[in-house]
């Protein structure tokens, strides 16, 4: 599969956002707010807004990244106004979280990484991402974020040609995983109840 125009533009916007967020992490780690940081945070907001505009079909879940982008702008403004080390560290923390969000959630990471590297233009996310998202949705709510991140990390590492097979097998095993997780939770609850009775 090839990236269509919209997916390509969205991937480019996300790659730009990721690059800017990483630069901000470096900027804010220096102990002061360099002038470039303001320009970067504005450019980052624009890149995220562009990615969001190109995500009208909601293929990607960008809500958290958008929230972190807004939070970063607020935190950076606070750091500039107050100038305290705590404010700066808080802003850097938001930037780190944004990098993790952009780089750590499939299929964004796959797309962004490949676009940033100028590498293969296949779509690791569209179908595999949806299959993995469906698999995660089948799991108990309390376990979803863990397995979303775990499967996402696996997908990022896999060569593009293996991602579809991986995601199909993950989806195929989702019920079994759900059953195993619920059984483990029951065992844990039972053990906790036994401990409480003692």
């Amino acid at each position, binding site marked *: 599969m090839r990236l269509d125009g919209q997916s390509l533009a969205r991937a480019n916007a996300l790659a730009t956002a990721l690059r800017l*967020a*990483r630069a901000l*992490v470096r900027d804010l780690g220096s102990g002061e707010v360099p002038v470039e940081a303001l320009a970067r945070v504005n450019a980052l907001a624009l890149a995220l807004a562009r990615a969001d505009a190109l995500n009208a079909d909601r293929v990607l879940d960008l809500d958290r990244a958008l929230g972190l982008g807004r939070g970063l702008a607020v935190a950076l403004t606070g750091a500039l106004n107050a100038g305290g080390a705590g404010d700066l560290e808080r802003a850097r923390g938001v*930037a*780190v979280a944004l*990098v*993790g969000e952009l*780089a*750590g*959630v499939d299929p964004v*990471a796959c797309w962004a*990484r490949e676009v940033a590297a100028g590498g293969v233009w296949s779509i690791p996310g569209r179908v595999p991402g949806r299959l993995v998202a469906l698999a995660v949705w089948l799991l108990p709510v309390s376990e979803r974020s*863990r*397995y979303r*991140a*775990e*499967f*996402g*990390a*696996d997908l*990022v*590492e*896999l060569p593009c040609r*293996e991602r579809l*097979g*991986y*995601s*199909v*097998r*993950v989806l*195929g*095993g989702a019920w*079994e*995983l759900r*059953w*195993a*997780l619920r*059984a*483990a*939770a029951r*065992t*844990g609850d039972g*053990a906790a109840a036994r401990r409480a009775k003692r």
Partner: protein
Amino acid sequence: MAGACGPRMTLPTQLVLRALLVEPTREMYGLRIGQAAELPSGTVHPILARLEGCGWLESRWEDIDPAKEGRPRRRYYRLSAEGAESARTALARVHTPAALVRMLRPDLAGGVS
């Protein structure tokens, strides 16, 4: 709590345990465990969840800065001390013919004794 329950010793479960027992203290993430056990990628997580639920496995998030590494954190798994013992015992008892395991995974067949 290891050993309080026992996972079904299916052949894939045996292969995962044998792969983990090659170096019981070594941490591996799901993709690597699947590769070490020579199981198709994406099939090991239910097995890992069962083993973790029984207390045979411990897991933790990798302690890295994703920004610096340029990749997401991995979830690392390792046999617990009791889990390694339970796994050895369970594998020794299992009825799967050793010849079958030797045929499927000759490199792992002798790795648990």
